[in-house]
């Protein structure tokens, strides 16, 4: 029997986010404003100006975790959208278009004051345009020109050498657009942007991401993995959605301390850990229990998901005296690092080595093509590095084609074929 006990801070993170959402709803009914934004946009600007942010992909994951996505994807078809469109970024839109707020988790999302996305894919501008039409909220879209000369070792260069890595032209454009966003939020809130305070706030975010970097190093180097990925994710992502706030910083600290204590005491997810696995791609939000499915039977534990290491590599950008430009360097190429070659393949190999990975499960969402492109390059690179890769053709929020039992059999069959028999 697995005696695994969750970290105390895991429940705290969940409770914080739930009460934050409830408070947000009541604040909004008394006139407060909030922004609804994609994960790869500079939330920092909204936070700095006292406007809370609800992240599209987080809300999508919540809807899926509450087992509501099947209903909404059926509604999506009734609304006249075909069934090969991406689901992750659109599930909240469908819930909004459906209109029945009571059906949504936690009583539903109120109307946002502004919508914000980056045109990293062709569908974001369309999804956000539909949101704007449905809610009357203004939309702000960042453009997303491509990277002409993508350097494989982005996670090293992006810390100090980001001007050269992302290119001055792209950074200039992003900074100009960030300034436009600031003007828009000033207009909406009637508040002025405070550059000096923003600089301090960016420092706080930097400190938070450095704590996550330490946490990541601890998890990676521990003899056996001390924390399930289903717990890593909320402990990282909830503070990330509030990054730089006093709560987020203290939570990151608490998380790190608890981890350090566990590692010191030798507590492991899977005391009989024999196989170290990575889960590649976004979470399997409607069935996060799947991550624990191979612990007892095969001594196989998921030790890696992108969220913890990405909190460091995706966010840490050393300030060169211009916080807005530093911010632009965080977002000029954000999710692309997780999905496009050469970035994704090189980073995954580096991560697999750091974490001593044996087996990778790779989520390939065929209808979320920008999350699926580059999967084969990643697979090839990981296999060349000695990692066995199992493709999981499914979707992060759509359970309609997910067959847990069949997937369990597929993965355990592969584990056994590779010499990782039942424990």
């Amino acid at each position: 029997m697995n005696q695994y006990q969750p970290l105390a801070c895991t429940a705290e993170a969940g409770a914080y986010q739930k009460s934050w959402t409830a408070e947000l709803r009541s604040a909004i009914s008394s006139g407060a404003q909030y922004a609804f934004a994609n994960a790869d946009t500079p939330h920092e600007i909204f936070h700095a100006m006292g406007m809370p942010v609800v992240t599209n992909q987080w809300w999508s994951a919540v809807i899926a975790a509450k087992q509501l996505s099947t209903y909404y994807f059926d509604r999506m078809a009734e609304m006249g959208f075909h069934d090969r469109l991406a689901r992750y970024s659109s599930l909240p839109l469908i819930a909004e278009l459906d209109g029945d707020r009571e059906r949504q988790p936690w009583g539903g999302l109120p109307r946002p004051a502004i919508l914000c996305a980056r045109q990293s894919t062709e569908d974001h501008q369309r999804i956000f345009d539909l949101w704007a039409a449905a809610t009357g909220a203004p939309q702000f879209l960042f453009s997303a020109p491509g990277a002409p000369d993508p350097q494989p070792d982005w996670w090293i260069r992006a810390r100090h050498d980001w001007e050269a890595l992302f290119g001055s032209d792209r950074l200039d454009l992003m900074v100009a657009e960030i300034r436009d966003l600031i003007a828009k939020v000033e207009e909406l809130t009637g508040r002025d942007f405070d550059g000096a305070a923003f600089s301090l706030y960016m420092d706080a975010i930097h400190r938070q991401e450095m704590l996550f970097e330490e946490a990541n190093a601890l998890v990676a180097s521990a003899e056996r993995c001390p924390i399930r990925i289903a717990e890593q994710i909320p402990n990282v992502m909830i503070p990330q959605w509030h990054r730089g706030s006093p709560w987020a910083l203290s939570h990151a600290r608490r998380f790190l301390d608890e981890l350090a204590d566990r590692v010191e005491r030798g507590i492991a997810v899977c005391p009989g850990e024999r196989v170290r696995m990575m889960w590649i791609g976004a979470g399997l939000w409607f069935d996060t229990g799947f991550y624990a499915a191979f612990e007892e039977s095969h001594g196989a534990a998921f030790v890696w998901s992108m969220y913890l290491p990405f909190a460091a590599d995706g966010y840490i950008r050393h300030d060169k005296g211009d916080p807005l430009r530093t911010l632009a360097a965080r977002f000029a190429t954000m999710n692309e690092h997780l999905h496009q070659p050469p970035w994704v393949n090189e980073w995954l190999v580096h991560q697999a080595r750091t974490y001593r990975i044996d087996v990778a499960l790779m989520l390939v969402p065929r209808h979320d093509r920008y999350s699926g492109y580059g999967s084969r390059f990643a697979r090839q690179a990981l296999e060349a590095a000695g990692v066995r890769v199992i493709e999981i053709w499914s979707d992060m929020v759509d359970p309609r084609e997910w067959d847990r039992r069949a997937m369990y059999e597929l993965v355990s069959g592969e584990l056994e074929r590779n010499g990782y028999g039942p424990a």
Partner: protein
Amino acid sequence: MRAVAEPGTSVGFIGAGLPSALALAGGIVAIDVECLEAPSDMPAPTGELVEPFVDARVRRVLSQLASDQLAGIQALVFCRDDPVGHIAYIYAQELRRQELISATPSFFLWNLVHRSGASVRTFNEVQARRLEDFLVGCGGARWSAAALVGAIEREGARSTARRALIDATRLARISGSEAFLLWRAGGRLAPEAHAERIEAALRGASNPANGAMRIGLIGSPVVDPHLYRALERHGRIVADPHPAGLAVMPSVPVLEGDPLSAILKAEAENPFALRGLPVARNHAAIVAACVAAGCDTVALQFDPNDDHVGWDAPALRRALRDAGISLVELGFVPAEPAALDGWVDDAMTASGSFA
């Protein structure tokens, strides 16, 4: 007909969004590599590295590269704001980094952003200067103001011919399939030759198909004439405002002030550009083209891998209905050309438009 690239100073491009006047100003006629032959299969190992949901047009250019069919081309420009150009670039540069495809042609990512505003204008000018440097490296000339003006004028003649082609299509003097082939031929012809070819075809065209059902074709970009032919067994395609259709060429740059800015502005504000903003302007332009052509019905189709045009469907349906135009829902285009006729017939029957 598709051709093989001739060696020499030739520059290819993939995807929409490269103003042909820019290459022309440097003395280069840029060739749309979709007009060139491609092998039917992607050779290994490239084939194994491209997921099945990468669409056919991207696979096609990757096949051309993997089988060295573009070796006669010196440079290939990928248009970032068209997913075909963008995705092809992502894969092609990685294949090259891994030395799985040869080192020629050299690659360039054309990063023009499709929107207006001062910061985007500055950005686009930087991209244009980079393109100029790149083309100079390929044997092109620097863009003098006079050369840019000259290129705009040469392209103006082509645009005039293209407008005549659109008018003739609307009047059903020429079939949509023929018009489409004539328009696509521009992908590998200098403006004068292209204009001449269109004019010659229009001189010979005099069979107005009065009384035939007037069809509009919208949805995903269509680059294959088979679908046009399958639809035209039921009537005449008189408008095709999908992202690769006749109407999508940006308007001729207005020559006041700096000619380079004029060229970039015309492209950046092209209402038919896939990533153009605002979205509503794109919908309005599509519906206006169908109304102007007097469509009786509009056929809506999607690429089997579509992940963006589908979001527009409900709004387009509503706008067409408000304009009194009926809709034929074709759904996803079958991969096999042989299946097209039956597929179109079924949709026409289902919509009550079977002629």
